[in-house]
């Protein structure tokens, strides 16, 4: 039989292929120019992301390589988020490439792009193995990026920590996935779902293995998402790694973990949701993890004096809110997850970008050093305040609508079906901890605005940094006030998940 390369399928994968080649080109370009071109490498990486976005828009949806590669609404939506997050991360790293990592610019930007390729690949894969490969391609460049300040103890520690935890969690995940394969006889998610539904009939015999598989996968992805009790690495890694990398970790890699989670649980293990599937009911397990995330993230964040650690705990809590949407398995659930992560991208990338810009100038990440900033650098102070208020969920910023949608999804589920009453408690915890969260977000705002003396620092923006901040501000305002187009798209994400069992 003659081997034929499936050409149509390759067109479908064109954005990934292009970005991959572009990443290699970024490496090479930096070498060819003898690392002389100061910002050209960075601009080139940003341009690559824009072109990839354009190609993504042109190629459109479809299904290729059998059923292994889907370019459905979910994939496109999340690819948009990955590209956006990478764009904003690269835009905010011009300061450090100028000052600190002069000799490795190409590697820095190239690895960022490679990690993005992994995320994009992951969000398209519809099969356990390629899902796992995508996840690895996402995280391995990030190990290097976390340790990029080679002379800085904290950064190296962050890299090692992230590497060890990442490898460990990958192993857990792989172990869990192998159980799922063993139970269902398929790595293909739709087939797995069908086979699992049949298995559901005699749950008593295989229940234990199924529970083990679910716990392992939750733990494996929980590590990647920094969901408690698997969150301990996140603050240390965020604190040590270069700030744009921490930003990318907190948005890009979190979104990637969420896609993987949604694909395995919301799609593959659909039938094991709900009280009738107990003890293999993953809904309650994840709900419990979400409660832990919201409580631990928001309470511990209050005590932080380093803004990067604070944002780390805040992003742990934000993942908890997203999980509320994830366990609300109705037409609002996945749509709310998609919208949440979209709004979260603008606010969190923006906040980290502001922190990065401040750090480039002052070298400090202490919240106290933000004192009086509104008087000397009003633009930075106002935009950081807006990002934090959006994260806290104050209307009319996008972060509010995101929380609204997540809680709405849970309450819709609970009012429709009395056996999901526990979702009310989830919403209760979510809302209460949201009030706590305001305390530490407002603390930063307090330092910036309430101080009556001028800050000793006067922050100037480089063009790409300014662009990132403006994208963030426009994003949270625009999509908070005119969210309809994105909400429509997010609703398609739900539709493409096909949450009906077959």
């Amino acid at each position, binding site marked *: 039989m003659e081997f034929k390369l499936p050409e149509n399928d390759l067109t479908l994968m064109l954005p990934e292929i292009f970005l991959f080649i572009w990443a290699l080109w970024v490496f090479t370009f930096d070498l060819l120019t003898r690392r002389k071109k100061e910002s050209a490498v960075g601009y080139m990486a940003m341009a690559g992301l824009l072109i990839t976005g354009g190609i993504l828009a042109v190629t459109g949806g479809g299904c290729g390589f059998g059923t292994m590669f889907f370019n459905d609404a979910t994939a496109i939506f999340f690819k948009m988020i990955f590209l956006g997050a990478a764009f904003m991360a690269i835009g905010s790293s011009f300061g450090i490439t100028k000052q600190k990592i002069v000799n490795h610019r190409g590697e820095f930007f190239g690895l960022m792009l490679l990690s993005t390729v992994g995320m994009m690949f992951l969000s398209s894969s519809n099969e356990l193995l390629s899902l796992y490969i995508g996840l690895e391609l996402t995280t391995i460049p990030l190990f290097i990026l976390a340790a990029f300040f080679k002379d800085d103890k904290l950064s190296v520690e962050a890299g090692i920590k992230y590497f060890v935890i990442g490898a460990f969690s990958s192993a857990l995940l792989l172990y869990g996935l192998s159980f799922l394969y063993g139970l269902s006889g398929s790595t293909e998610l739709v087939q797995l779902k069908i086979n699992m539904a049949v298995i559901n009939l005699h749950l008593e015999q295989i229940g234990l293995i199924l529970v083990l598989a679910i716990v392992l996968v939750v733990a494996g992805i929980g590590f990647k998402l920094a969901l408690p009790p698997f969150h301990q690495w996140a603050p240390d890694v965020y604190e040590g790694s270069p700030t744009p990398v921490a930003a990318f970790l907190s948005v890009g890699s979190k979104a990637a973990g969420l896609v993987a989670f949604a694909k395995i649980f919301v799609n593959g293990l659909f039938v094991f949701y709900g009280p009738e599937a107990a003890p293999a009911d993953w809904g309650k397990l994840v709900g419990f993890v979400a409660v832990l995330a919201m409580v631990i993230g928001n309470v511990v964040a209050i005590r932080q004096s380093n803004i990067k650690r604070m944002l780390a705990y805040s992003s742990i809590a934000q993942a908890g809110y997203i999980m509320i949407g994830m366990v609300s398995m109705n037409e609002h659930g996945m749509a709310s997850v998609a919208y949440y992560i979209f709004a979260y991208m603008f606010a969190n990338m923006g906040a980290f970008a502001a922190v990065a810009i401040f750090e480039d100038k002052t070298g400090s990440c202490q919240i106290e050093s933000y004192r009086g900033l*509104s*008087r000397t650098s009003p633009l930075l102070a106002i935009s950081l305040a807006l990002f934090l*208020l959006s994260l806290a969920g*104050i*209307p*009319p910023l996008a972060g*509010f*609508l995101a929380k*609204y*949608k997540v*809680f*709405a999804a849970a*309450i*819709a589920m609970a*009012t*429709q079906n009395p056996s999901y009453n526990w979702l009310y408690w989830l*919403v*209760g915890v979510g*809302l*209460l901890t*949201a*009030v706590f969260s*305001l*305390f530490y977000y*407002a603390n930063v705002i*307090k330092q910036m*605005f*309430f101080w*009556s003396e001028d800050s000793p620092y006067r922050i100037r923006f480089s063009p790409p940094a300014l662009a990132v901040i403006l994208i963030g501000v426009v994003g949270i305002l625009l999509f908070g006030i005119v*969210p*309809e187009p994105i*909400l*429509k798209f997010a*609703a398609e994400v739900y539709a493409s998940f096909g949450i009906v069992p077959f």
Partner: protein
Amino acid sequence: MLSSLVFVPLAGMILVMLIPKDKIQAIRWTSVIVSLVPMLVSFWITWDYFFNHSGTSAMAYVEGPYSWIPSLNIQYYLGVDGISVPMLFLTGLLSTVSLLASFNITNRVKEYFAFFLLLEAGMMGVFVALDFFLFYVFWEIMLVPMYFLIGVWGGPRKEYAAIKFFLYTLFGSIFMLVSILILYFTSEPHTLNMMALLDHGPTMGHTLQMICFIFFFIAFAIKVPVWPFHTWLPDAHVEAPTAVSVILAGVLLKMGTYAMLRINWPMFPQVLRELSFWIALLGVIAIIYGALVSMAQKDLKKLVAYSSVSHMGYCMMALGAFTSVGAIAGCMFQMVSHGLITGALFLLVGVIYDRAHTREIAAFGGLGAKIPVYTGIMVLFSMAALGLPGMSGFVAEFMIFVGAFSGLNKIMVGISVLGVVLGATYMLRMVQRVFLGEFNMAKWGGLTDINAREIIAVAPLAVLTIAIGVYPKPLADLMQATLEHLVNLMAR
């Protein structure tokens, strides 16, 4: 028409932000002129509503419902009736008055006025929104400028007071959010339209009604503030700059009672019947407690702040007697009257504080001879606050007592009347210790009397206080049809 109330201040905020920050006079006058627009619009609405719309309970000047976020059934829907028109009037007037009173702010002027205009936009929005989501957005949007206004320009404990206010109110709001979502998902078809949900509320299961009612009540009670949710109020009032205290007392507190009348009461009448005794009891406790604590205050501003707790207690007691149109009308009168009187009292306390740099009652004495105009105005409003006949406070309290006596436990109403006596005690004692007695020439010899700008700011409040006190009929007529409709809804 109604949109302009919200968007003109918002546009004004952007305009103010564009002015260079050292052009202080330009910033001040731009904000005042901008705020004249919503003020005049609200006056015109009051006038026109009185003559053309007050005969029916239907919403007037309706805008929408336009679809805002169709996939979540969120609408842009504005309208006013007899209970929102007086509140709009009050908001429009007090905003301009407090902007005029803010000219003594010299630190970070631009930010101050920008935040103030944002605050005004939010307040106007709350009183005109008829969609729950929109209502919630306006309700929350106000917190941010308020947080800054207290936190940046406040007194010594400003940071504590600002975050306490923010957290307290946000804590209340989350309860409201849960109720809104429950209402939304139990209604068929799903809607956030307040008017449509008025009919849906009573058809819900009893437990859900109870949950929704209590959750809404917590959210609004914190804003009022009803005892025991009142502890943010003295802190916020005392630390806030003068003009912000005026807005807090004059408008923000009214939002709580307004929202109860607009949402809680007509939407869940069955639960209301079961709980009305306890609500009125909370009101009576607030009346007595607020008055007693007022008596013990050494600081002028704290005294006025606690008297607010007492005065808003009358509103709560009246709301407990929901069967009587008179009591509800009394509640509305009290809201308007308290807005005028307490707003003026805060302004006047600010006037003396600007000059003397202290608000301690014991530090003064015999000021009557030195600053006679100020003394006259202050005594006028003190009399109004203690409910002297001929002024609006008396009308309101009288209506509340008459209405409540028929609808509530008579012993409870009897106890609440004690509040009037206590009110007279703390007000008169304050007047005596500040304005009468020995004058300390060495200390206060250089004190100057109230100036023209400050008189202009406080004069409209004085005129309205007396006008309503002497001839309350127009205000009563304006609300009559709406209140009858509301009482009918509550009797379901």
